[in-house]
Each structure stands twice: as C-alpha cells, then as structure tokens.
C-alpha cells in the first residue's frame, strides 16, 4: 500500500450518515451543495446531447467552445483575459483542478500553506502529491482574517504555494481588495504560486467578487467550476486558468489520467454560462435572504456568528454553550433531529464552531433554527440549574 495513505484519515462524517438515515425527520443543515435544482435549460441541453450522439471524447483540454465561453465569462466578471487556446483547461470539477495543480507544481517535500478553517480536500491532496501542508490558522476573534506577518513566518525555502478559498467553505468569508493585493505582494516577494479556489465566487451577496488573479495573474492558478452557482454538482465539471507553460504541464497529467472531462457535462456547462444572468437573478436574492435570516437567528440565540460574505455556509461559535462541537452536533441530531457539521472537520482547532449550510428553503431553515434555539435553551437552563 502507498505509505502516504496512512497519513490520511477517513472522513469522520460517515458516522452521522447512518444515524440520519435511521431517523426519518431530520432537517439537514450539513449539505455542501445547493438546494436549487439545475436549471432546465442546462438539463435539456444535456438530454439533447445524448439524443444527437454528442457523446464522444473531446480534446484533452476540453471543448474549445466551452473554453471560449469561460474566457468571455471571466472577462465579463473580472476584466481579465485568459486565452482559451493556451490558458484554460476543463476539469472534472474543482476537485480534479486542485489535484492537477498540486501534482504539477510540487516536488517531494515542498510545502503548501493552507489556511484553516478550510475545505477538507486541501491537506490530503497536498500529502498525496508528496507535499507538506503547513497550516496557517485564522480565528473567529479576527473575523477569520489572515495575519500577514504570520503568513510570512510560515514561508520557508520549501514553500511552493498558498491555497486560498474565498468565499470560504466553511466560514463564508471573502477577502477585500486590499487583502488580496497584500497577499499578492507576498506571493510575488517569495515567488509562490497561489492556488485560488473561487468556486463560490458568484455567490457573493453584498459586493462584487474580485479574483486575486487581477493582481498577479502569472502566479495564480485560478480554479472555478459549475457545482455551486449552477448546482451542477453531479455533472463533475470545472476549469483551471493559469499560465501557458504551467497548463502545458498539467495537460501531461490530465491527458493520461482523465483524458477529458465528461462530454455531456461540457456541453451543459456552455449552456450554463449562456444562462448565467437569468439563473443568478433567481438564486442570489434567495440565498441572501436566508443568510440574513440565519445570521440573525443564531446571534439572537447566543451562537455568535460573523456575517458571511458569500457561499451558503455560516460558522457560528458554540463556545457559550460549553460543549465541543462533535458532542453538540451528535446531541442536536439525536435530540432535535437537526444535522450540522462539527467545526473540527475543517481544522482541529475549531472544536467550538459548527458549520451550518443554508442551502435549504426558508420554511425548513425556520424550523431548524427553532429546534436549535430550543436545544441551546435547554442546555443553558440545565447548566444554570447545576450551578
């Protein structure tokens, strides 16, 4: 067996699955994918593709037509240009994009800075690429902002890259223009790549998302996909934009390990980009309303949370309750039939946070918030009585 695998722990979340399945009436706030269905224009395009037989391999890099749409989309939203012929690669989701990026840039023993709390794949994928994850922690007290001096201290002569994710899973926090510029300066100074996972970029609620590629395009490996804004999780489709030479090397891996991203999904993705405005017009106000509602409810019941900039997560603190999040989540599930994800799934330090996903309709969110409030009240009352 590959020795690296012994360093990778299976996800602890599995345990919860079985419990949820056993009860029928659970409201799950633990879901990392949108509740909105894939727009019918997109599904219809996928069906049409199968009907007409557009079901063959595409070029390794992906359909040129799709790459051109992606390029246009980035110009429209971010005012930067990636050449569809040389700087864009279509992947099986951001998941594969991350894997390709890390495998392409790392030599054994190279270090990658990972900012916690973060999405669960960054560390294992770094390890599997013979890299060494170096964790930079952010904290609730500092609104999960990066301490730039600490970031610099984490950089060694082995450091190859920093992985950024904004809006962030699990906190929903994003970076401001200034923060992005400052991080870009550091990457420039120390000659580091920035792997920028911007999969939630379209789901930004109070301002426009800005990519760090605006400030140091040549060092950025820009990752994005169709899973979140278009709900196309099962289509397994995303893309990488980066410097031409880097992309050529990524293609060496991609052509043999994946050949190409699923053809039907590629055609569906073209349709998604062509319907972007219509789709976002429908979902953004709804996500924003839910975010505001959940934020308010949690803070009112004493679970302090920071207002997320985007994505569909909120990461409240449960410190005031005095139970660690694994226990909290388990009891909440057993006693109130609400599923959430314990904070330590996103970094070992976050034992007093839970991740709540608001990818659920308002009615369900309301019931779930009522149940959590009840739960919190009961625990606090009991604590009071014991005293």
């Amino acid at each position, binding site marked *: 067996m590959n020795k690296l695998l012994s360093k990778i722990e299976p*996800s602890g*979340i599995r345990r*919860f*699955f079985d419990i*949820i*399945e056993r009860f029928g009436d*659970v409201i*799950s706030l*633990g*879901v*990392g*994918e949108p*509740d909105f*269905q894939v727009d019918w224009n997109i599904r219809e395009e996928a069906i049409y593709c199968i009907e007409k037989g557009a079901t063959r391999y595409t070029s390794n890099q992906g359909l040129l037509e799709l790459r051109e749409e992606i390029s246009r989309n980035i110009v429209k939203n971010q005012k930067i240009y990636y050449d569809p012929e040389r700087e864009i690669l279509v992947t099986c989701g951001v998941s594969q994009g991350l894997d390709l990026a890390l495998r392409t840039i790392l030599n054994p023993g190279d270090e990658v800075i990972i900012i916690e709390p973060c*999405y*669960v794949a960054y560390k294992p994928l770094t390890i599997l690429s013979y890299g060494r994850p170096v964790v930079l922690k952010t904290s609730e007290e500092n609104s999960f902002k990066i301490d730039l001096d600490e970031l610099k201290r984490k950089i060694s002569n082995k450091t190859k890259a920093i992985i950024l994710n904004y809006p962030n*899973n699990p906190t929903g926090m994003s970076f401001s223009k200034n923060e992005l510029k400052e991080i870009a300066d550091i990457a420039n100074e120390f000659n580091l790549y920035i792997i920028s996972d911007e999969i939630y970029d379209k789901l930004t609620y109070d301002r426009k998302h800005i990519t760090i590629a605006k400030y140091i395009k040549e060092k950025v490996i820009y990752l994005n996909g169709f899973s979140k804004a278009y709900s196309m999780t*099962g289509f397994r489709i995303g893309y990488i934009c980066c410097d031409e030479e880097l992309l050529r090397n990524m293609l060496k891996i991609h052509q043999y390990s994946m050949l190409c991203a699923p053809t039907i999904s590629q055609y569906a993705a073209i349709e998604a980009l062509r319907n972007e405005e219509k789709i976002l017009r429908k979902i953004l*106000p*709804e996500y*924003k*309303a839910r975010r*505001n*509602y959940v934020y*308010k*409810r949690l803070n009112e019941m004493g679970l302090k949370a920071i207002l997320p900039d985007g994505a569909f997560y909120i990461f409240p603190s449960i410190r005031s309750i005095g139970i660690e999040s694994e226990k909290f989540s388990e009891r909440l599930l057993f006693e109130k039939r609400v*599923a959430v*994800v314990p904070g330590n*799934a*996103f970094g070992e330090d976050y034992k007093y946070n839970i991740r709540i996903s608001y990818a659920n309709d*308002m*009615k369900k969110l*309301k019931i779930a918030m009522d149940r959590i409030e009840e739960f919190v009240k009961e625990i606090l009352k009991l604590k009071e009585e014991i005293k």
Partner: protein
Amino acid sequence: MEDELLQILESNPDICPEDLSKILNKDKKEIENKLKELESKGIIKKKYIINWEKIGIDRVYALIKVKVSPERGRGYDKVAERIARFNEVRAVYLISGEYDLEIIVEGKSLKEIASFVSNKLATLDGVKSTVTHFILKKYKENGEIFFEEEKDYRLKISL
C-alpha cells in the same frame, strides 16, 4: 429595501413580518407598515390558488379567441372591459395576430361555457367572431408546475 422585500415575498409568499424583519434588519412595525402600503397601492396581492380537482369538484376552462371591431377613440379597451366584467371570465389579453383578444373562461360544465359564449360573449356589440378551445388538462399555470415535485437527491451530509 422595497425591491429586496418584493423579491423575498415572491418566492416566500407566506413569510411572516417577524421573519422579514430579521432578513431585512428592520423593525417589525416598519415591515408591517410597508406591507400595508404595498397592498394598498396594489403592488402586492395575496390570493389562494385552489386546486378544486383535488377534492373532486370539477371546473371547466376554455381559452377563447375573439375578433372584435375596435371603437373610435377607445380602441379595444371598451369591448375588452365589457368582457372582463363578467365573473366567468378569468383573464383577458389583447393579442397580436389574427385574433384581437384572448380570454379564459371558467364554468362548471362544457354546457355552461357554451351557453356563456353563445348567449353573452358572441352577442356583445363589437364582437365579430369567436373560436373556443376547451382546456383538457393543466400542466403549468402562473409559474406553478403541476407535476410531482422533484426528489431531493442530495446526500444528507457533504463537506
């Protein structure tokens, strides 16, 4: 706030003022006043959509195209108003193309609608001809789709 409020109401028609006040970070009283204002201005209107068929009560609907002669000074409006005033008529549209008006009529039976068309509608001053299509089945109405809701295929927990 008005745009945002209206958007929320459209997708959550039965949301209460208290929840709206949390979403919009406004006083509950302020939201209630705003709702009253929107209602009195005719910007929002609450209405139940009842699926009579579900409890076995039949309703028959017909889509009727009407050719009319427009009137000097008021165009199609006058005859359209006369048609619209009938309780049986659920909708009236001025349309482009071969016909002038398209109306939707509701009744208890085919006979009732047929009688409405021949006795009331066709005999109206200004109505030149009509063509009636009975509605056999409804698949979608006012954005509401009458097929089974799609199942939620998501895993209960994913990171």
